[in-house]
C-alpha cells in the first residue's frame, strides 16, 4: 500500500466525537428564564398573631389570661410582669448595632427571665407585649422572637395607655 492511499484512508475515517450539546442547551435556555421568574430571592415569613387589645379597662379585663404575663416597654426599661410573677426590671439600653434593635445584655437578661417564667408555668403559652406608641416595629418583632425562643409562642400586642408609660 502506498503512502498516498494510506493518507487518504485515514482522512476518510475521521469521526466527529464532540457531544451534541445544542438540544440540551435549548432546554436550559427555556428552563432558566422560567425558574428565574418563579425564584424567590428574599425569604419572607410571617408571624401569626392575636389582635391588639382595646386600651380601655372594661374590654381588657374580659380577655385576661390567668397568668397575664406581659413585657411592658418603657423608655428606660423592660418590665416583665404577671399575676404571681415577681416583677423584673431590665434596663433598656440603646443598641450599638443597627441590625439588632435590642442590646445584647438586655436580650440575654430578657431571655433568662422569660425562660424562668416559662419553666415555672409550663401550661402558659401566652404573652402580651405592651408597647409605647413610639416603639419601633423592629423592636417589637425582636421581643416576639425572644418570647418564642423562650417557649411563649402566642404573642399579643397591646398599646400602653399613655405614651412611654
Amino acid at each position, binding site marked *: 500500500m502506498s503512502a498516498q492511499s494510506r493518507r487518504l484512508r485515514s*482522512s476518510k475515517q*475521521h469521526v*466527529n466525537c*464532540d457531544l451534541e*450539546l*445544542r438540544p*440540551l*442547551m435549548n432546554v*436550559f*435556555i427555556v*428552563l*432558566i428564564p422560567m*425558574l*428565574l421568574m*418563579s*425564584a*424567590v*430571592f*428574599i*425569604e*419572607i*415569613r*410571617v*408571624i*401569626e*398573631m392575636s*389582635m*391588639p387589645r382595646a386600651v380601655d379597662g372594661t374590654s381588657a379585663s374580659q380577655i385576661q389570661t390567668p397568668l397575664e404575663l406581659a413585657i411592658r416597654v418603657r423608655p428606660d426599661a423592660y418590665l416583665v410582669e404577671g399575676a404571681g410573677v415577681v416583677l423584673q426590671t431590665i434596663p433598656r439600653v440603646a443598641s450599638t448595632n443597627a*441590625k439588632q434593635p435590642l442590646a445584647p445584655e438586655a436580650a440575654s437578661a430578657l431571655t433568662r427571665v422569660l425562660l424562668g417564667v416559662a419553666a415555672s408555668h409550663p401550661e402558659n403559652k401566652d404573652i402580651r407585649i405592651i*408597647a*409605647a*406608641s*413610639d*416603639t*419601633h*416595629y*423592629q423592636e*417589637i*418583632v*425582636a421581643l*416576639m*422572637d425572644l418570647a*418564642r*425562643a423562650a417557649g411563649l409562642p402566642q404573642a399579643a*400586642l397591646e*398599646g400602653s395607655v399613655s405614651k412611654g408609660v
Partner: protein
Amino acid sequence: MRRFRGRRRRWKTRGLGETGLSLTSLMDILTCLLFFVLKSFVAGGETTVPPPGLELPASTADKAMVTSLVIAIDQDEILIGSEHVATLKEAAESKGMLIEPLAARLAAVRQQMDEIAGQQAAAQRRPRIVTIQGDEDIEFAVLQKVMYTVNQGGFDDIALAVLKKA
C-alpha cells in the same frame, strides 16, 4: 514550493472538524446558573415582594406566607397591594383608632371577597387573612391603628410579614 503547498493542504484538512461553535464553556455557565436558580425556586408556596423602599424587620419566625390580602406600611403611606390608601400623616391625625380611608377600602375588598365566597362551595372558603408588611422603622402607634382597622373590617386573622434571619 511543493513542500509549502503540501503544508497548506494539511492545514486545511485539519481545520475541517473545528468549524462548529464550542458550547462547552457556555454549558458550564448555564449548569451553574440552573443549580443556583433551582436552589431559590419555591414550588407551591405564596410569594410576595415588598414595595420598593420598604424594609421588613428581620425575625426568626419560620411560618410560610399564605394567600391573603397584603397591606404595606412604608415610611410615608399605607398601601393595599400596590394601591395607595392613606398617608401616615392621615393615619396619625385620625382622631380615634380607626383609619377611615383604610376602613372604606377594606369594606370594598371584603364585599368582593364575600361575593366570590358566595359562589364557592363551603369547603373551598378560606378564612379572611390580612398580611401586614410594615417597615422596620414605623412606630407602634401606626401599626396598632392599622391592626385595629383591619379587625373592625371583619378580617379573621393577621399575619406580620418579616424577613427570615440568615
